[in-house]
Structures are given as structure tokens and as C-alpha cells.
């Protein structure tokens, strides 16, 4: 009985928690959705142009994997002549190191690109290039999410950084090209507050080309 009373009381009182307004801003949200989707180039099915991003990503992925494998071998040090049995035992560990290095290199490349994008966003005083920046941010947002779901996201610090980047990039993607300066300032503030650029730079090893 007391349980039922509590449930009734709870439902009654908890309904005030994050209670949505009665009027849903349907039209405003629909406009924002169509504007965002319309800002993207329409896919041209069967045309070579539609394959260019895929080709570009495939080439980039191959280069990254190649670089990762190279780095993995480099980290192993000079190759010595060892008995075959030792090579068999170390294969699993080496594979793991190569795999890990590949994702490390992919992450660093990605962070460099995000740094370049965010630096451009902050340096651009007007909204003239917002559409190009939004397209860039959208690509980076997709890659950020892919990395978060990959073994690269297993590192807690990197995962948190990627999570913050996801938030900032999503805000840039959703930024209305005609939005007042205050909207851009909000995104800028989020970048500052979270020290996103500083954290990205500290995640990029010395000697790696900077994105800015």
C-alpha cells in the first residue's frame, strides 16, 4: 500500500522534472533540419564525383595503415637475426603493437585536421566561409565518431577529448549561416572553456606537423 502511495506521489511530483513546454517549436526545428541537410552537396549517384570521397578516404586509410605499420616496425628497433621459434612467440605482441600504432597515427592525423579546422573557424571573423567550414566540420565529426568507436577510443583521456570534440564539431555543423555573432561566440566560448585546442596540441607528439 505504502509502495503504491509512493509511486503515485512520485509520478505526481516528478512530472515537474525537465517538464517539456506545451508548444513544440516544430516549424523552427524543421527549418533548421532542411537548412542543414540542404547545405550539403546532393549526392550524384553513379557519377565519379560521388566516388571521390570514398577514394580519398581509401587512399588516406591505406597511407595511415602504411604509416602505422612503418611506425610499428620502427618502434621495434633494428631487426636482428633471431631463431624462428622466437619470431613465432613474438608475432601476437607485434601485431598488437602495429594495430595500436596504426590507430595512434590515425588519431594524431585526425586531431591535426581538427586543430586546423577549429583554428580556421576562430580566425574567420565573418560567416562568409561558414558553409565550407560546416562541410569540413561534418566530415571531421563523422571521423571523430568512428574513432570513438574504434580501439583508438579505448584510451580514457583520448576518448574524453574525442567526446568534447564531438560536441564542439556538432555545434559548428548545426550553426546557422545567418546566425548572429553571438551564436558563433557561444561555440568559440565552448572551445576556450574546454581548452580544446590546448588539449589537442598536447596530444600531438613533438615533430608532428601542426594543423594550425
Amino acid at each position, binding site marked *: 500500500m505504502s509502495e503504491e502511495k509512493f509511486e503515485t506521489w512520485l509520478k505526481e511530483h516528478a512530472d515537474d522534472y*525537465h517538464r517539456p513546454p506545451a508548444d513544440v517549436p516544430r516549424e523552427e526545428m524543421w527549418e533548421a533540419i532542411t537548412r542543414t541537410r540542404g547545405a550539403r552537396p546532393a549526392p550524384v549517384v553513379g557519377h565519379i564525383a560521388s566516388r571521390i570521397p570514398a577514394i580519398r578516404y581509401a587512399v588516406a586509410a591505406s597511407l595511415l595503415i602504411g604509416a602505422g605499420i612503418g611506425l610499428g616496425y620502427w618502434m621495434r628497433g633494428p631487426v636482428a637475426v633471431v631463431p624462428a621459434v622466437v619470431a613465432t612467440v613474438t608475432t601476437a605482441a607485434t601485431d598488437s603493437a602495429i594495430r595500436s600504432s596504426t590507430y595512434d597515427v590515425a588519431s594524431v592525423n585526425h586531431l591535426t585536421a581538427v586543430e586546423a579546422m577549429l583554428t580556421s573557424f576562430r580566425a574567420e571573423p565573418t560567416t562568409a566561409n561558414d558553409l565550407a567550414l560546416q562541410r569540413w566540420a561534418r566530415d571531421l565529426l563523422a571521423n571523430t565518431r568512428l574513432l570513438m568507436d574504434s580501439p583508438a577510443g579505448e584510451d580514457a583521456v583520448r576518448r574524453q577529448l574525442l567526446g568534447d570534440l564531438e560536441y564542439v564539431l556538432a555545434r559548428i555543423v548545426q550553426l546557422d549561416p545567418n546566425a548572429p555573432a553571438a551564436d558563433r561566440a557561444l561555440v568559440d566560448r565552448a572551445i576556450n572553456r574546454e581548452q580544446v585546442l590546448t588539449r589537442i596540441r598536447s596530444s600531438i607528439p613533438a615533430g608532428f606537423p601542426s594543423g594550425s
Partner: protein
Amino acid sequence: MSEGRPDGTGGISESDSVSESQLVARAIQGDQAAQRELYDAHVDRVYRLAFRVAGDDDLARDFTQEAFIRAFDRLSTFRRESSFGTWLYTIAMSVSLNGIRSVKRLRTKEVSIDAAETLGTKERIADPDLKDRLKKAIEDLPPGYRTVFLMHDLEGYTHEEIGEVLGIQSGTSKAQLFRARARLREVLADFAGAWIA
């Protein structure tokens, strides 16, 4: 999954499932009128869910928009194993929960900076009233418990619906709701007189 809400906000009934299927097929072809119909049928529920999670109009709008953008972008991958609504609410919950996680991290840091700045100068605050205590108690629930509690007790979803949207068994949803209520009852024990009366 029944999609009509008792309060009549949004949703497409079972009898409309054929036309919904046609709408989805047209929307995949890029028919904006069909996309708009799907949007109109579901936007209220998506927005309400997003608002319950975020507690903020701007964020709720962001999450709702992002959910629809993702859904329309990926519509060709919709397998029709569940209704369009269930598929859409799954996306909406994923967007909202991931989004609020990022926002909370930013806010926590902001609050900790503010707290550090006012350290030692803060006056004693009077005990928060029931509303504030209840709000804090809900916010302190583990994320899984809170999500089920919001969906079931505040938005009226059934355990079967919650199970489909969150990808859990309906029994798990029931167990989480039970634990959520038990946790709230324990934390709010000071106010026992209010519900016993």
C-alpha cells in the same frame, strides 16, 4: 509497439503502419513532403524525450534536429524490423544521451571553477525544499535507471517500448525502474510523511 500517446502528442497508430511504410519508401527517394509527414508524426515525442533528458530548450532542439537529420540521412539503412518510430526514438535517445554526457562534462568543469572561486566566501545555504531534493535525487540516479524512469514514469512508455528503444530486455527495464524508485524512496525518506498522508 503502440505509438499513440495518451495525451495525443504525435505518434502513428498501428492501423496507419501501411501508410507509414509508404511514407518511409517515399522519404528514401528524397520526397520532402513524405519526410515532413514523418517529422510531424513523431517530432513531439522526440522533442519531449530530448527535453526530459536535457532539461533545456536549446539542447532539446539541437538533439531533436540531430536525431531527424541522422534518421533521414540513414533512412536507406532502416530495415523495417521495428516500426519507424522505434527506430527513430532509438536514434533520438542515443543522440540525447551522448549529447548530454558531453554537456555535463563541460558544465561540471565550469561549476568546479566557479566553486573554487567562491570557496570560503559562501554562506550557509538553507536545506533545499522538496522540489530541489527530488530534482537532485533524479539527477543522481545511475544513467540507466534515470533513463528508464524518465521514459516510463514521466513519458508513459511501456517496458516493451523502452526495451526496444534502449536495446534491453523489458525485464531489465522493469528491474531498473524498480531500483530507481527504491533509490528515490530511500533518498527522499525525509519526506515520507508527504506520501503516507
